[in-house]
């Protein structure tokens, strides 16, 4: 057998599409999954609506004005024409019709919905973004470094710095400074030969990194999240950013667990060992080699998390703790409408149905993603 025949040219069997790109893979994901596709379509529609809404309702003279008060035209039903002679030129709704009616101050509900869409979108994505970032970081650390034990010295150091922070907050400046430098000082002392022996207890291992992170997760899970959010939001000045951050910081736990679980199994895989054997740095291994393989469950839970975040924001607004008026959010509109539920049912239905559709479609999309990603992963 000749040399040329011995070395096999790599032409994989013709059945496999040559160089399958990301786009084809994406398209194939949704081939059999109508639900997921529908969810994706609505997702994109929502995205576009929110963007459009931002441009159409902001500025000094917006196309759809959410803040325009028209007291003569309050509580008008959807698709109704403003009463003749009540409105000036600039107060007229576009198309001459109140598309979704008006609320108790005569404000155009359609315009307010558009404005609210942007809030919901932002809150949903940013909150989930924060949650995912924190979850990935902590989950990755717990998964990769899991069995490493935190040393006594490191624990003391952390306590010292926490103490310093507290002392600083209470105004005891000098105490804070002292605690702050306690750590580095002990580190320096350990370099001295004669102290190395007695200070050896500082190197003893205590609990593992995995234990630390997981107990933190458990602690966070103990709090009923909605009430935690409520409490924090009530204490902080009301603003959209605070809400996003708070929701984000209270919903990272699921992601952390997923990432940790994936990392625990990935760590045993040969390609990770190979990367270590090649001398690739730890952080590069974690983020460039392992993370892309652990992302799948995170994507799924993130998609569903956006829906939850939107619901949470709506709930907060409904209770009056959301974005302050006059800025519209879907929860706001719902809240305003609850007093007029028999006179003007559209005030509750419209935002309610909108929230329902968006949340449902995100959930379907997430489910579809999970189905689509799983068999593919098994294939590989």
């Amino acid at each position, binding site marked *: *057998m000749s040399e040329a025949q*011995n070395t*096999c040219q790599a032409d994989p*069997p*013709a*059945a496999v599409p040559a160089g399958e790109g990301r786009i084809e893979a994406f398209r194939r994901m949704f081939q059999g999954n109508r639900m997921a596709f529908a969810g994706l379509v609505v997702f994109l529609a929502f995205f576009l609506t929110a963007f459009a809404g931002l441009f159409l309702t902001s500025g000094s003279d917006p196309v759809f004005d959410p803040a325009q008060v028209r007291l003569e035209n309050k509580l008008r039903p959807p698709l109704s024409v403003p009463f003749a002679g009540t409105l000036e030129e600039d107060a007229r709704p576009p198309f001459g019709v109140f598309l979704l009616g008006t609320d108790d101050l005569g404000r155009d509900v359609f315009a307010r919905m558009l404005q609210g869409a942007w809030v919901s979108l932002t809150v949903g994505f940013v909150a989930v973004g924060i949650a995912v970032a924190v979850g990935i970081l902590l989950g990755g650390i717990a998964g990769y470094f899991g069995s490493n034990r935190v040393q006594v010295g490191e624990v003391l150091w952390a306590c010292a710095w926490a103490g310093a922070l507290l002392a600083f907050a209470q105004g005891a400046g000098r105490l804070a400074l002292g605690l702050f430098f306690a750590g580095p000082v002990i580190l320096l002392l350990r370099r001295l030969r004669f102290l190395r022996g007695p200070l050896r207890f500082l190197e003893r291992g205590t609990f593992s990194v995995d234990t630390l992170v997981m107990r933190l997760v458990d602690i966070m899970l103990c709090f009923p999240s909605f009430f935690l959010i409520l409490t924090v939001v009530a204490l902080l000045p009301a603003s959209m950013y605070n809400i996003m951050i708070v929701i984000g910081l209270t919903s990272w736990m699921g992601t952390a667990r997923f990432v940790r679980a994936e990392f625990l199994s990935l760590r045993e895989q040969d390609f990770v060992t190979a990367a270590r054997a090649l001398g690739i740095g730890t952080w590069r291994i974690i983020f460039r080699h392992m993370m892309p393989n652990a992302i799948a469950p995170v994507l799924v839970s993130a998609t569903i998390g956006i829906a939850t975040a939107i619901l949470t924001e709506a709930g907060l607004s409904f209770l009056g703790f959301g974005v302050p008026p006059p800025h519209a959010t879907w929860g706001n509109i719902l809240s305003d409408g609850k007093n007029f539920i028999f006179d003007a049912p559209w005030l509750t239905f419209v935002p309610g149905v909108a929230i329902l559709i968006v949340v449902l479609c995100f959930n379907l999309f997430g489910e579809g993603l999970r189905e689509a990603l799983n068999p593919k992963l098994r294939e590989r």
Partner: protein
Amino acid sequence: MELKTETLLSVADLHITFRTLAGPARAVEGVSLGVCRGETVALVGESGCGKSVTALSFLGLLPRAAVIEQGSASLGGVELLGLDEEELRKIRGRRISMVFQEPLTSLNPVFKVGDQIGEAIRVHEAVDEDEIRRRVVTLLRDVGIPNPEERLDDYPHQLSGGQRQRVMIAMALSCNPELMIADEPTTALDVTVQAQILALMRSLQEERRMSILYITHDLGVVSQVAERVYVMYAGMIVEEGRTPTLFEDPRHPYTQGLLASLPSRGKRGRRLSSIAGHVPDPACKPVGCPFHPRCPKAMDPCTASVPTMIDLGDGHQARCLRAHESALNPAEPGQRPADGDRRVKG
């Protein structure tokens, strides 16, 4: 060696196709084989050749995507393909039993070993619990597990790999089947444990006059356990015959290539000959003989149609247009060593 002629399992022209996204995949094409009573027959081939699919079809255990297009498989005269669930259940475990490759996943981890072995007896025979227990203990002793009375109450994870495989064999033996199908039973085991299991299977077969269909990719194991061998490639039987004959004088280029590519210390210092290319995907097999793209002896007629089996005498057949060329006497194609002069390697 006593002549074994009473046919137990007879498979004729079996065709099995899988429905896949890439089109129909012809996993098994025209397989015909036979196993006599008390005989050990090996079905050899690499991954993807269709050997496991063939065996699963006898028990009706094929996945839903598989369709048996044509052919028949009969056990002692009873047709197996196309039986309904009720009929199949009477055959599984009682007349045909199967031993799988990975004992850790083939045994249910939450049930005791004794219960799992006794289950087949419970299903197939109307015997009381004490009798079942007694028979399970006997079975465990037969398969060489020490202290069987205590091992009865162990869970699979408490046993070693070799012991688990013995438990699987005990399960397969529990209703005294006529045919045992062993699908790579020792691939996952260590060499010394494998040797024990092979010895066990030989002795059991001799005691019970059971037939064994041994499916494997390991030619060394085949030469030690099997009396006759079927070599499969790309869903077809390409060569069959008595084990010593086949290994001494293989006639199909695939068998020749396989044997030549096995490393051994006898070949030290010489380059191993290997078969170029790769196994074809069942969904897109080449026209004609499936081996021709990789075959060093390919000719033009090989690409036209699938060759028929050529009889070389004494049960030795090969599916190759050049089957009469023997590697033993290359200058005289068509001549076979006479029965009397054939050296049996031992």
